[in-house]
């Protein structure tokens, strides 16, 4: 490869970072050259985010050295990293929800000052959005809090690529496509290739192994705070990556292994999107896993929320005959109670069942938590620790435990696998199939086409309407994508 001969832009040597007794990084060497896209993979908690925090100056390494362009950096910091042109798009979005897209752009560009700064910031971000995501439909004056999580992610990514005073040499993309649908994700990855082609560098962190294999020049695999493999992307395939990452042995979801064995029972949910013009409606029976597909933000979440509300009272065009629970995908704004322990976060949906007399029984609460810790493998020494002590993927497991541990017969899932590693995903897929066989109904909105293979039936959404209804046998990626753009499948 050409890249082999180029000098390293970034070089980390023997970097260590400990948090108390936890060795987040245990002696990591890393080299990023100009003009290459490096894929970084590993399970949740392997140390990827910690490593990137050190690279971008957010965290100080416990020991080890950082050199940029061959010069050792003594006092490395966020502002120093920005001066050197190193930026990061974090997995937990960093936009201010109360500000507009243009105002958020201004935060990264102090040079946009004086009269008319808002207009110049708007032009800057709009130009970059058009370049990366043609046809994005986002206005620079939109308030970020009003955008769907997918669109917020698009803004976040585009903002990282805008340039004013500081140079731009290396962008770290931490799960950049987790909330993007296949089409938008494709646009971003194409842009990354062009960016790298122009001599810049990129680190791509993703749990979607196909995305990494298809777009990275080199791949670095991390496990337990160490780099366990680093090689040209061509030297890996999906199975060898999964094996190197450790953990889950089965790499692929066996096709057709959905819950057909279980009984398909009576109708649990009948729902028509508010904007539906024809007589198509979503029907879900007990024991079924129903997929909601299509481009992100085309009415899937709205319908899930409408079904959630309909379970509490009457709503026209809706029929919901059993209790519901929702697994949020947007953890921070829809799911987590940040002051509470893991056990309390799991228990909140079931507090009424944990009463003994008038009071919540601490024993039952602990039992519920312990049961699900073991069943869904939440990695923590103590379920009474604060929920934020968990990694993102494990927080998500706690949200699954909240819903699955409840009395709900209908489980609504709002793109719940964002930023979750493949081992966890496979565990959760198994759990979902098992629960469906026991008679539960799942409504599953996902932006990852692969996940639809778990479903008995898939409804494809476009512009707030259901445009296609595909059974498991009819389901192909092509059909989903075709219908997603409003064409008749």
């Amino acid at each position, binding site marked *: 490869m050409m890249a082999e001969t180029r000098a390293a832009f970034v070089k980390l040597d023997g970097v260590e970072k400990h948090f108390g007794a936890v060795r987040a990084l245990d002696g990591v060497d890393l080299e990023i050259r100009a003009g290459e896209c490096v894929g970084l993979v590993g399970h949740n908690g392997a140390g990827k985010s910690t490593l990137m925090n050190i690279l971008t100056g957010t965290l100080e390494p416990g020991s080890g050295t950082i050199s940029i362009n061959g010069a050792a950096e003594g006092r490395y910091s966020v502002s120093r990293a920005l001066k050197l042109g190193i930026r990061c798009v974090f997995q937990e979005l960093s936009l201010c929800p109360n500000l507009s897209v243009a105002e958020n752009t201004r935060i990264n560009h102090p040079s946009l000052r004086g009269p008319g700064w808002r207009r110049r910031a708007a032009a800057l971000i709009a130009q970059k959005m058009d370049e990366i995501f043609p046809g994005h439909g986002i206005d620079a004056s939109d308030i970020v809090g009003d955008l769907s999580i997918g669109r917020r992610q698009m803004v976040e990514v585009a903002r990282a690529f805008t340039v004013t005073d500081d140079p731009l040499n290396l962008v770290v993309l931490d799960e950049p496509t987790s909330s993007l649908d296949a089409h938008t994700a494709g646009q971003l990855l194409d842009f990354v290739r062009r960016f790298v082609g122009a001599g810049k560098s990129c680190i791509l962190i993703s749990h979607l192994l196909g995305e990494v294999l298809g777009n990275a020049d080199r791949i670095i695999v991390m496990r337990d705070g160490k780099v366990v493999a680093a090689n040209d992307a061509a030297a890996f395939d999906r199975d060898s990556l999964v094996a190197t990452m450790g953990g889950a042995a089965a790499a692929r979801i066996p096709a057709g292994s959905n819950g057909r064995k279980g009984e398909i029972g009576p109708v649990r949910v009948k729902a028509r999107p508010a904007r539906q013009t024809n007589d198509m409606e979503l029907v879900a029976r007990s024991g079924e896993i129903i997929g909601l597909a299509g481009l992100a933000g085309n009415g899937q979440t709205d319908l899930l929320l409408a079904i*959630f509300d309909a379970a509490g009272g009457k709503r026209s065009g809706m029929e919901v005959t059993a209790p519901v*629970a*929702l697994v*949020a995908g947007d953890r921070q*704004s*829809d*799911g*987590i*109670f*940040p*002051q*509470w322990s893991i056990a*309390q976060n799991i228990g*909140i*949906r079931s*507090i*009424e069942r944990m*009463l003994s007399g*008038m*009071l*919540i029984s*601490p024993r039952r609460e602990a039992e519920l938590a312990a049961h699900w810790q073991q069943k869904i493998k939440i990695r923590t020494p103590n379920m009474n620790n604060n929920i934020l002590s968990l990694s993102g993927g494990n927080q998500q497991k706690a949200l699954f435990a*909240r819903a699955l541990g*409840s009395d709900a017969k209908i489980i609504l899932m709002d793109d719940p696998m964002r930023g979750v590693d493949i081992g966890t995903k496979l565990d959760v897929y198994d759990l979902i199939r098992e629960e469906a066989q026991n008679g539960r109904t799942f409504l599953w909105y996902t932006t990852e086409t692969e996940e639809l293979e778990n479903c008995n039936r898939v409804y494809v959404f476009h512009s707030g309407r259901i445009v296609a209804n595909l059974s498991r046998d009819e389901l192909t990626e092509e059909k989903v994508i075709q219908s997603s753009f409003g064409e008749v499948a």
Partner: protein
Amino acid sequence: MVQVKALLAKPWIWSFVGAFLVWIAAVAFTRGHGGGGMIIAALSLAVFMVIVGIGQMFVITLGPGNVDLSLPANIGLASAVAMKVMDGNDSMVAIGLLAALACGFAIGAANYLLIWALRIPPIIATLSAAFIIQSIDISYGRGLQIKPPPGFADFANLRYFGIPVLAMLAVLLAIAAGIVLNRTVYGRSVLAIGQNLRAARLAGVKVQRTSFLTYALAGTLGGIDGALLAAYFRGANVDIGNEYLLASIAVVVIGGTSVAGGKANVPGVWGAALFLVLLLTMLNTFGVSVGIRLVLTGLIIVGVITAAGGPKAER
């Protein structure tokens, strides 16, 4: 040593430490005279702050923007209602108390109705409710001081082993509030809503019912407070609740409850109430004028809230 550390990690401990320091300062000034009496007097007066403070704590814990500013007017009206119903007659005390409770509950319910049905922000809804309530009180009580029945007044000033009975009851109330907050469906719902309203709704928490109960609870506690104040001070009047506007919020915040919601602190309400009362006692013993006393009280409250808010921002 470990126990001391664990104790220092509790956010409510600081309000008690503050109360203690203020008391030491006052006793030092008097060269040790009247130290015990100061504590007993402080206990008697702190009771009334604790009762409204607990109600306010539940409201503030509901999350940003939630506050009940109608409590002073509520206290004033409930005190008048209780005294008029009792009409100086010891046999009517129970009915008078019930009337005060009902009056407070109705005010709380009306507050929530304004907030929910008309979608007015709580700060404005409860403030405008306060004006309406005060006007009702003025026309109802005609500005006259109404005397409590002698038995009820004696009860409010009763002491066992030198300790005010009302203070004992208020400790029980605080313990009950702690249990309600942490061990009941209602309490957990309040805490969940305060942390993240949207997540609470999506986790199946009954948001509207919980908010209604919270404003009703705060109103009811305001009503009881009004009746007890009228008994303790041997008479109801329109201004009887005035000092509880700032005090009810100050005891909550100084006590370690998060203004951002979702994190409440019951023991801290007691500590903060003692701190505020002893602070006044201290300034009185120093013999400073009323103006200076008010300025100092305001500055000290601001200082304590700033100091108490410091470590929380780190999280």
